[in-house]
């Protein structure tokens, strides 16, 4: 691994840099699920005993910032992908807390030069502190030619 990336990993990985509360609105999660093409009542009917947000709903929640203060900008960031891990269903009608940290930094080198990837992870917790889910955002920055 390149030395500058090693240094960034040592400096920035696994340190929370943002915290934000999200109100999970039932009407919003229902519309989200409907537009995705879900048909199950547990995602669409507030009166269903197992009513919950669709698993990827948390991928739509953004923290106050996506990278830590002072993190270098290698180039314009592009959305390279999303990941979600679900530990417990997100129940609409509650507030959940999201804490963000940098989960990974790595590079790939192609014909056009080096690309730097960052993975920002938001960990979501309910009010009892139960870890409900993680949402990862993968950003790729094509390094400016030197």
């Amino acid at each position, binding site marked *: 691994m390149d030395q500058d990336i090693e240094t960034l990993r040592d400096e920035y990985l696994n340190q929370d840099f943002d915290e934000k509360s999200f109100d999970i609105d039932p009407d*919003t999660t229902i*519309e*989200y*699920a409907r*537009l*995705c*093409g*879900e*048909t*199950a009542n547990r995602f669409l009917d507030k009166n269903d005993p197992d009513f919950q947000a*669709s*698993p*990827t709903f948390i*991928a*739509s929640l953004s923290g106050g910032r996506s990278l830590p203060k002072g993190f270098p900008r290698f180039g314009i960031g592009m*959305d*390279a*992908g*999303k*990941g*979600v*891990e*679900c530990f417990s269903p997100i129940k609409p009608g509650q507030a959940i807390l999201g804490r963000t940290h940098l989960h990974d930094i790595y590079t790939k080198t192609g014909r056009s030069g080096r690309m730097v990837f960052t993975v920002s992870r938001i960990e979501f917790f309910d009010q009892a502190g139960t870890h409900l889910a993680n949402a*990862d955002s*993968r950003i790729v920055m094509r390094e400016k030619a030197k």
Partner: protein
Amino acid sequence: MSISSISEVEFGVDLPVFEPDTSLETASKFATLVGWGGARFTDHEAARKEGLPGAMVPGILSQGYLVAMIHNWAPSAEVKSIDTVFRAAVIADEKHQITGVVTDINEDDKLVEIDITVANEKGETRVFGTASVQIP
């Protein structure tokens, strides 16, 4: 065929092909719902002015289609994780198909791994990913 038990899942089986609603109207409503109401998701002409081939379907909507496809196949499946790579833009108002294949079955933990792809009418992959789901 709808799956209700892990015992019905076969290694290597293709999931039923799913045709998501990639209309501009849906992409636009979704983008507005999640607070991404920019022109690139709501207006073909404005998107072209930004250098895009047309208005795009938000990446997280494509991810949502993948999960809906899994629930269409196995209604009681619980998604434990899904990782998606946005390889190229999904253009609104163009037809796309989602295909999936079972790549691993862990009967002890009742977990099934599925590789999933969103492709356009030319067969070009736009989004791909892997999901791990628990089926009773």
